[in-house]
């Protein structure tokens, strides 16, 4: 890949940036979940690897979180944008060279940022933990080049309309850039106090709401019609989804701070807007499930559809839970407990990861023009991910309910810690299954690139039979 950095744009084969991004994202996925599993082990067995500053929980936790968000999820998004945006515009990526550089600088910057974090150089703000110098780097060398490539490709399209996926892509790269810069402004300008705390959560909320959720959904809007051959059930519902994301998802940031002394009107407002997130959620889920009409056999037979539809279905509990847990009636019970950690993994490891994994599976086969090496390994990956995630989610939800009960009944804290112990072990086992599945995936994709059957001209990957 690196050899293309200094080639002329015309000499770089189309799709190079997407392949580069695709493999980078899988590697970050392996690294990130490995770190997650390590952290989980520490919470279950506190004396596992001790006595070293670098391997203490407080130094490792944020490295896991930012590795999976900026490494796995966001790079998988970039990979999807680099091949889906041109495909939907019937054109080439605006600049393949910019894409390759984008990916290179992304890997360099993220590795650097995570290393600094690991050594303790943090801004002390959850999700915007990177020191401000790294924030500026991310805005200038990661977000902007990606946004530029996506917009220019959409402008240079050779189709008349713009398909749903591309609205989301075009708006998403814009919104994430704004959110990133505004959300980190406390570090640039030394804002302090509650305004700073609130901006921290404004950032965290909007990165999920205006970047991760809509882009993951946009990918599904492409994968399902493309692979099943059915047209999207309804563009109108797509419109509803898009606009309600912009209006409703961008407003409830304060629901993360329900027990902090924020102005009361803000909390009530956030709580109501948070329930309204069900509008885009229901629009999205129903639109895609209805697109599947007549093709449900592919849910079992086809790898990409299996992943995508599982992700779409996980959006149902995710949004139900999200809408209700942030109302004042419920939030006081589960705030700050493992329940929230379970919810975070339902959103990122459940819902969004499954959608992105499908995009990476499909994209790599399409661009490399090679059929997936092994269906068996893909199924192994799928089930390890799903079962591992389920164990994670169930155990942390139970742990959260125990903590919630501990809060109101004023149980001595240590008794809560003791009661949670079995669930901490279960979470570690579940997470380690996810990690194991990912290693298998990396191998499978590597073998696909090397030894997958070549796809003849004019055929699509899903039209060929699996061989192993």
């Amino acid at each position, binding site marked *: 890949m690196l050899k293309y950095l200094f080639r002329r744009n015309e000499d770089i084969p189309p799709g190079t940036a997407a392949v580069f991004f695709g493999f980078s994202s899988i590697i970050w996925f392996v690294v990130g979940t490995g770190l997650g599993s390590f952290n989980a082990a520490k919470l279950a067995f*506190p004396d596992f690897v001790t006595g070293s500053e670098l391997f203490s929980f407080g130094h490792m936790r944020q490295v896991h979180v930012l590795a999976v968000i900026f490494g796995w999820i966001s790079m998988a998004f970039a990979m999807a944008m680099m091949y889906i945006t041109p495909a939907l515009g019937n054109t080439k990526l605006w600049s393949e060279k910019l894409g390759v550089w984008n990916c290179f600088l992304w890997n360099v910057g993220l590795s650097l940022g995570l290393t600094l974090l690991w050594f*303790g150089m943090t801004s002390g703000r*959850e999700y915007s933990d990177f020191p401000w110098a790294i924030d500026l780097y991310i805005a200038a060398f990661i977000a902007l080049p990606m946004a530029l490539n996506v917009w220019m490709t959409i402008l240079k399209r050779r189709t008349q309309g713009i398909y749903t996926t591309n609205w989301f892509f075009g708006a998403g790269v814009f*919104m994430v850039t704004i959110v990133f810069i*505004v959300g980190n402004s406390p570090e640039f300008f030394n804002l302090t*106090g509650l305004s700073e705390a609130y901006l921290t959560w404004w950032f965290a909320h909007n990165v999920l709401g205006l970047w991760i959720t809509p882009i993951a959904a946009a990918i599904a809007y492409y994968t399902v019609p493309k692979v099943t051959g059915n047209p999207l059930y309804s563009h109108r519902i797509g419109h509803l989804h898009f606009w309600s994301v912009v209006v409703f998802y961008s407003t409830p940031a*304060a629901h993360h701070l329900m027990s902090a002394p924020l102005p009361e009107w803000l909390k009530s407002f956030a709580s109501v807007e948070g329930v309204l997130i069900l509008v885009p959620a229901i629009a999205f889920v129903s639109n895609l499930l209805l697109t599947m009409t007549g093709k449900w056999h592919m849910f079992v037979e086809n790898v990409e559809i299996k992943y995508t539809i599982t992700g779409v279905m996980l959006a149902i509990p995710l949004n139900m839970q999200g809408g209700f847990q942030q109302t004042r009636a419920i939030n006081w019970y589960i705030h700050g407990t493992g329940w929230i950690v379970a919810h975070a993994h339902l959103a990122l490891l459940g819902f969004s990861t499954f959608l992105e994994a499908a995009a990476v599976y499909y994209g790599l086969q399409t661009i490399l023009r090679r059929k997936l090496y092994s269906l068996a390994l893909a199924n192994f990956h799928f089930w390890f991910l799903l079962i591992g995630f389920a164990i994670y989610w169930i155990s942390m939800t139970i742990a959260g309910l125990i903590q919630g009960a501990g809060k109101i009944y004023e149980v001595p804290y240590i008794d809560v810690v003791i009661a949670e112990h079995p669930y901490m072990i279960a979470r570690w086992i579940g997470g380690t299954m996810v990690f194991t599945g990912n290693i298998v995936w990396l191998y499978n994709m590597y073998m696909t690139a090397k030894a997958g059957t070549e796809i003849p001209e004019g055929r699509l990957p899903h039209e060929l039979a699996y061989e192993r």
Partner: protein
Amino acid sequence: MAFREYKIGSRLFGVALGGSMVITLYMPTVDMTSVAVTEMGLTKQLSYGRIGGFSYEDPFLRGDGKPKTVVLNKDPKTNEPIETVQAFVYEAGTPFPSGINHPRTLGPGATELSTAQGRIEEANHDNGAVFVISRATHNGETVNYIENASATRGWQPSQVLNAAGDANTHLIGSGKIMFVREGCWWCHTLLPEQTQDWQYFGIPPRLGDYNGESPTAFGSDRKAPDLLHVGSRNASKEWMMMHFFNPRLVQPHSIMPRYDYLWGENDADGKAIDYDAWRTAYNDYAHGKTVIPPDVPNYAADSEIRYLIDFIMSLK
């Protein structure tokens, strides 16, 4: 051409996103900055200094460039006994907190009093300054404000530090850095919840308690007791030492990590700490081979654990 549609669409998009930002950013900020800082808020910002995370003065988060908090019971200039007062010493070069640099952020009343009576604008970064918290009435309300004691009482940083002595000097600002760097806030909150658990952990914070603090680090995830008032629950330094060196010494079921590495290389007497020997002795104890655990070394006066314990004990 179908372009018209996108023209309208993109304008609507701008209106929607802009409107959302007005409601969720502009309006709350106006509200939050219109609140006067409380005594707790002043104490926090004066004892923590400018920034508690990554900054110019302290890029590696070692606790550099932070003020010192001292307790005085005699006037450092005249040596006359005075009523006990907490003073915040900013030695030459130590960056001032946000309230001194931008008095406006102190909120109504406190801004006016701090500039007029407290003379904070005379504080000079190159010479350093000493601040105390004072109280006066403003428009019929009692307001806490910052007094620049270097200007009003002629107290100089070195004088104050000498008068107080090391035993009465607390490196709270550097300790906050340790708290942030070591990720204590991934497990502990600094936010008893308004709903119910404040009955156990003490009163929840108020709006003005945060003016000038950065980062607030009150945490989102509670895997351990809230610490906002831990200093009034447990004031034993010996307990803290054992607990930080190895939490399982005092609480066998704890999942808190060991922070023995914060002791650094040498103990209070300058002798090298032999961690391997300590761990071997501890393992024997943990496996029931010995009855008494090894002693926790006394920490050096400039060790990171001193900072951290000073900070934790200040959470009253």
